[in-house]
């Protein structure tokens, strides 16, 4: 009897494991494993302290905001490599405009910078049908160069305290403002992706473009829109950098595109499009922040951090390919 029931149990477990969709759930498993690992080894270094946890959230907010938009881009079977540079450009545009024209124009200018670049990306991809990889690769250099050029490579300080409070520097009670920004991005992203027609159109276009077109979806328009959104989100991320660090610099966001894309893919969104997992993306981005934070606490040099981070990403993606 008992062996039988044990057998049944093990076969039920086996069934559960074989049904478990590794690709979409690996991020939660990886997140928990790495969290426990760091908690055990780095508990004495303050890893588990409230301050440190809030720090992780603060540091990943910009990545999370860009990653939510990137989830739409990748679900649409496109890519946006320019987000990091656009964030840098937007940070300096915002800072310079605030200095010269005040708070509201500054906020609008930062968003507009992202929107313009997103629209150019989207237009070139959707109308001229140039692969997004190439368009945004070019834009990566263009935006970074532009940001450096208009500032003469100099940092642009922000002294407007309202701006700093709203965009990243401030706390609302015990809650960091950046945490609220993250929640808003994820919340809106999740609803739009899963509960609106637009979200369906984005995913259908990425899953089977021909089918989507035959169904009456204007696929060029959805592709244009996801790149536009990604540009605006990158603009917002740049403004959050500027708020948190109280200055605009062309270096802000540099290299973030890789972290953002890794977060989205780790989160279970297929690089080939068709499905976007917003909650997975959030955890992917927190996972990246977790690793950064843990490696710093462990006292690794930044060169060593890069090596370990690269290895962990490869391992997680390799695991997620297991069916």
């Amino acid at each position, binding site marked *: 009897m008992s062996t039988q029931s044990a057998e049944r149990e093990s076969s039920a477990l086996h069934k559960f494991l074989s049904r478990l969709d590794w690709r979409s759930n690996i991020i939660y498993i990886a997140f928990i494993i790495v969290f426990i690992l760091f908690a055990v080894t780095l508990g004495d270094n303050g890893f588990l302290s409230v301050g440190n946890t809030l720090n992780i959230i603060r540091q990943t907010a910009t990545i999370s905001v860009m990653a939510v938009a990137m989830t739409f881009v990748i679900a649409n079977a496109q890519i946006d490599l320019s987000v990091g540079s656009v964030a840098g450009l937007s940070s300096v545009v915002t800072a310079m405009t605030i200095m010269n024209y005040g708070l509201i124009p500054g906020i609008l200018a930062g968003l507009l910078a992202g929107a313009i670049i997103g629209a150019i990306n989207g237009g070139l991809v959707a109308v001229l049908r140039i692969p997004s990889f190439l368009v945004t690769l070019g834009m990566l250099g263009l935006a970074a160069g532009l940001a450096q050029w208009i500032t003469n490579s100099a940092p642009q300080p922000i002294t407007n305290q309202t701006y700093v409070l709203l965009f990243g520097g401030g706390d609302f009670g015990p809650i960091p403002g950046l945490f609220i920004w993250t929640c808003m991005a994820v919340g809106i992203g999740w*609803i739009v992706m*899963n*509960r*609106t*027609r637009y*979200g*369906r*159109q984005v*995913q*259908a276009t*990425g*899953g*089977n473009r*021909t*089918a*989507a077109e*035959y*169904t*009456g*979806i204007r696929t060029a328009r959805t592709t244009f829109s996801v790149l536009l959104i990604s540009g605006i989100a990158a603009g917002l991320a740049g403004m959050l950098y500027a708020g948190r660090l109280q200055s605009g610099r062309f270096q802000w966001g540099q290299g973030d595109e890789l972290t953002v894309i890794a977060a989205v893919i780790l989160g279970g969104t*297929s690089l080939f*499009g*068709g*499905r976007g997992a917003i909650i997975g993306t959030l955890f992917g981005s927190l996972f990246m922040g977790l690793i950064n934070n843990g490696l710093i606490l462990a006292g690794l040099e930044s060169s060593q951090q890069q090596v370990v981070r690269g290895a962990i990403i490869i391992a997680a993606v390799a695991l997620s390919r297991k069916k």
Partner: protein
Amino acid sequence: MSDIMTPPAVRMRSIVKKFGPVEVLKSVNFEIRHGEVHALAGENGAGKSTLMKVLQGVHQITDGEIEVGGELAMIRDTQDAENYGIGMVFQEFSLVPSMTVAQNIFLNRELRGKFGFVSDRLAEKEAERIFQRMGVSVDPSAEVRNLGTGYWQLVEIAKALAKNAKVLVMDEPTASLAKHEVDHLFALIETLTAQGIAIVYISHRMDEIRRVADRITVLRDGRVAMVEKVSEVDSAQIIEAIIGRGLGSQLVYQDRERDYDAPILLQVDHLSSGSGLSDVSLETRAGEIVGLAGLMGSGRTELARVLGGIDRSTSGTVRISGREVGFSNPSQAHKEGVALIPEDRREQGLVLQHSVTDNLTLPMMHELMSGPLLSPRKTRRMTDQLVHDYEIKVSDVDAPISQLSGGNQQKVVIAKWMNTKPRVLVMDEPTSGVDIGTKTEILEMVRTYAGEGNAVIFISSELPELLAVSDRVVILRDGQTFRTLERSEIEGEEQLQLIIQGEAA
């Protein structure tokens, strides 16, 4: 009576369609009545798909009129066609694999629940109702990529019905279905027509047309070559109408006066494999064509793959000209003179984005060298020779092969492999998806090739063509040789069908 009283579901009158200066449809009349299955046949390029694309609003007509339910219809885009109740079940499936069944059915017309948000629960309930009406059971919450292709088609049909389609156009609906799925499809077609839905059934397969269609329209060179009740014409008449050049005789067995004492080129004894063969034996003499028959999964394709060096055998022997061989990869098979023309030309037979030239010469590069480099002159000469010999219709041999019609693509595959001069040629479904004209040409190529003293193993699910070329038929069942029949022992298609199905000893 009722034909006169009620207007037909769709009437297309004097339809002309030009692409630039090329007239693809030259005044075509086509009529679909409520509740009928209307077969639409014709060679590739005869105008079938253009006619249907005009009806679906993908192309606009150059001249002519379309009436729906007796009223003049202006169909300018696919949305218009949908509004007129014209639905399409695509050959290349048009579903989004990463979405659920219900999400696909209501794609871009999502049902809204609370707060105007898209509701999957409503969609699933509604999808359930449509499947009930179709008399099938499909889980609306399953992701499409996890379903078999047979279900994909059901979802396509449900998607069209969800838009209140009155006319369903099915383009080669059985192309990727297994036998029992075909039976289900035909039952479904009956259910739908009983509800008054008209079906346009595009197919190359004569037996299916005879089984399912009420009427048939045949197009040839952009004109109507035949409109008849299917019960009032025989298959030969239909084939004549399709190809229009008295080639029907090609589909009849021709005795090529074989040499029964010719040496045995290929001998297979008690072959088993991990892929499902358990005991297969057969022999093929020089100059002989051996047909392999059997149901899906009976071991036909599996045997072809072992002979071609793709899968390995676990026991038993393969002898080429009396010498025992064992292949662990296709390259070794080529060296022993065995070539496999695989089942799926797009996946396994061609590099689709490469040119016709590159595809044709790929296995023969060693003959095209001039020193260490490929010689453009030799390449050109070989390509021209093959295009000529195999009558491949191609305007530019340097254009990607994906631009060729299915029939011409298949000719490229066959030319490519015959050109390597294998002693044993294994062909797995070499005529699937090609029109009848090309089919007869391919059968003739096979006969000629065998006539030159080579051995051919010919696999086909279409019995008429199997019987047209095979000198002997080996029937496989459950991975074993079930029976071997000389062509002269087989009286006809039905008898062979019964043996394959295992209903006669």
